[in-house]
């Protein structure tokens, strides 16, 4: 039986949180800015560097690679404060969340020395080259391929939904490095691709409201030197699947719409029995989800890999983010005004971008099947 343990904080962790909270309060006083919404957050490289200067980017990178060597829990505490405030975390998001950990886990010494200090300094921003036009949640079916050439690889193919490719420096790119024969999970590798490479084009895929988060990235004989291969050639699938615990379990899975709720309470009159009932139930779920998510971070620090737990939290969290919106929308009443005050604009943006909340890290439908299979297997094992 899956079970989460509540986790308190150490004094040092509390101290860190206080620092972050003070920093955030100073940078983002309520009502003075339009909050960003979680994983859709805009990029603000200057802000990312200010964060980095405080040691809050690439936090898990150990001191020998220029980082502060802090825990997943400590990173959690920083990230949740930023997301709750709607900070513009877009620039360093992927580097901090995924790239630094996987380079640490799988990268060569050279890659570590080359990239980790720059990530920690807020100097190297990454995007993910995973999805392709025909792959979707079925990552193993990627067709982008790298073929051997002198001193490296020639990359050809097309990636879509790469967030932030327009301002990032590198793309961690999943591709096929040996022809598919039989099992499609075999023969995949991850390459670090310099986005300024010859033969590489980035073009926007605009969101329905015209916003530019996503891109199409096309590789035409892009040269990637050997040392930019992450880990062993052919181990891409293993790397990608072991990333998923990071990707699924974080506070970004339930906090995306928190700023909307905050501004709603700050800038609208809210009262009455129905508001009490619904806000109360919402508060209970935030409380439980946050503590489950924190508990996963703590487990990671203890060397556990709570993959199924992370999956379930993701599933719960992303549905919950929609519930928050529905509630705010109901209680606000009247017509939404995308040209209205800050709260009105925020709610409008949240409403039209809500369908994106469930897109990353695999659709919920696929995740549920994975989780169900695990539960059934555990059950059979227990018999």
């Amino acid at each position: 039986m899956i079970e989460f343990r509540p986790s308190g904080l150490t004094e040092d962790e509390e101290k860190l949180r206080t620092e972050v909270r003070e920093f955030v309060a100073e940078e983002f006083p309520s009502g003075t800015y339009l909050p960003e919404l979680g994983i859709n957050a805009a990029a603000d490289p200057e802000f990312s560097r200010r964060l980095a200067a405080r040691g809050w980017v690439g936090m898990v990178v150990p001191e020998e690679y220029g980082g502060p060597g802090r825990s997943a829990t400590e990173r959690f505490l920083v990230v949740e404060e930023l997301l709750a405030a709607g900070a513009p975390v877009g620039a360093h998001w992927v580097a901090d969340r995924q790239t630094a950990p996987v380079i640490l886990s799988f990268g060569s010494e050279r890659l570590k020395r080359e990239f980790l200090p720059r990530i920690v300094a807020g100097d190297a921003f990454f995007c993910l080259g995973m999805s392709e036009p025909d792959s979707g949640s079925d990552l193993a079916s990627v067709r982008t391929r790298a073929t051997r050439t002198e001193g490296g690889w020639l990359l050809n193919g097309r990636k879509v939904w790469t967030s932030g490719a327009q301002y990032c420096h590198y793309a961690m790119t999943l591709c096929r490095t040996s022809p598919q024969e039989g099992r499609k999970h075999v023969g995949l590798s991850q390459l670090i691709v310099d986005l300024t490479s010859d033969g590489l084009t980035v073009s926007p895929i605009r969101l329905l409201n015209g916003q530019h988060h996503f891109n199409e990235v096309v590789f035409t004989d892009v040269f990637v030197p050997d040392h930019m291969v992450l880990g062993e050639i052919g181990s891409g699938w293993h790397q990608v699947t072991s990333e998923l615990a990071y990707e699924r379990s974080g506070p970004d899975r339930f906090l995306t719409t928190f700023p909307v709720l905050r501004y709603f309470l700050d800038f609208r009159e809210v009262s009455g029995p129905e508001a009490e009932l619904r806000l109360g139930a919402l508060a209970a779920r935030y409380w439980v989800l946050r503590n489950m998510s924190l508990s996963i971070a703590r487990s990671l620090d203890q060397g556990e890999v709570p993959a199924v737990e992370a999956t379930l939290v993701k599933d719960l969290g992303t549905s919950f983010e929609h519930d928050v919106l529905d509630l705010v929308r109901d209680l606000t009443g009247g017509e939404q005004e995308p040209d209205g005050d800050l709260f009105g604009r925020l709610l409008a943006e949240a409403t039209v971008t809500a369908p994106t909340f469930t897109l990353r890290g695999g659709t919920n439908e696929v995740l549920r099947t994975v989780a169900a299979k695990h539960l059934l297997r555990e059950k059979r094992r227990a018999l």
Partner: protein
Amino acid sequence: MSDELQLLDGTLRAIFAKHFDRDTRAATGREFPRDLWTVLDKAGLTALGDVESGAGLAELVVLARAVGRAAAPVPLVETAGLAAWLVTGAGLDLPPGITTCAAAHPDDDLTLARSGDGWTATGVLHRVPWGRDSDQVAAVATGEGTAFAVVLPIPDDVRRGTNLGEEPRDTVRFDGVALAADAVAPTTVDHDALRERGAVLRAASMGGAMESALELSLAYAGEREQFGQPISSFQAVQHHLVAIAEETMCTGMAVQLAVSATAEQAAFAVAAAKNTAGRAARIVTKRAHQVHGAIGVTDEHALPWFTTRLWAWQDEFGTTRDWAARLGRGVLADGGAGLWPRLSASVGGGDAG
């Protein structure tokens, strides 16, 4: 769970498995399972909440969860978790026999009046768990403007009632019952405090019942075939299973948070636990029945032991909505600036150290 709690859990599991298995349950029918109670009593479990014993809320949550997991029709939570705590906390002794506890029903009204050296008690307690089967009932009474813990013998003429899980919930009246001075003591536990504790323990039992509903659903889905394949291979069934697991997890976490909460957080954490359990109960009962189909609604199947209790318990010690409203009043009072600090407040203990 710590090793001590694991041990307690193991003891409880073993007792229920051995002394209240399927056959015993069937043989007992709707009679009170007195043999089971005797075993629990001899093991010292019925007095677990005695404040002298060192057992705290963490232990009683383990006990309540085990009761829910076994759907055991005995007032163990009431005796060990509520009565023992209320009575010994006020410096009284827990009497022998079965001592159930008033259920903090909103219409309860019990007053004490001085009478010679002792007291007389008058009033009514509603929906007292296993009132008919218990020897006495512990309750909070009001006398001379103060809250007192009292233990009252249960009269013969209780008005019988049940909850949806067919557990006795009897209304008990007292009309000037004489009480010795040493059966009454001032207490810091008021009606609300009793209700809060009851809510956490019911939520724990609900979590236990959900675990069993999940186990049954997984087992059934894995073995039942339709259209030539196990129904667990259907995505719709998989989603039911996942939702049941998620809500069971949420309930477990919410209850553990109530155990770990600091004094300042307790009111919030308790309300969140009972609200979470209630919300989860609706989802788990619907989906577990949907997985089981017709077999699950028969009196020969174990599923209804759990689902009928989940239907009942979500309303006991405050409904899901009662607790939501209480949380909501806090949210509105805190306002936007207070919400995040409230939601992210650290609980005590856990793995931090």
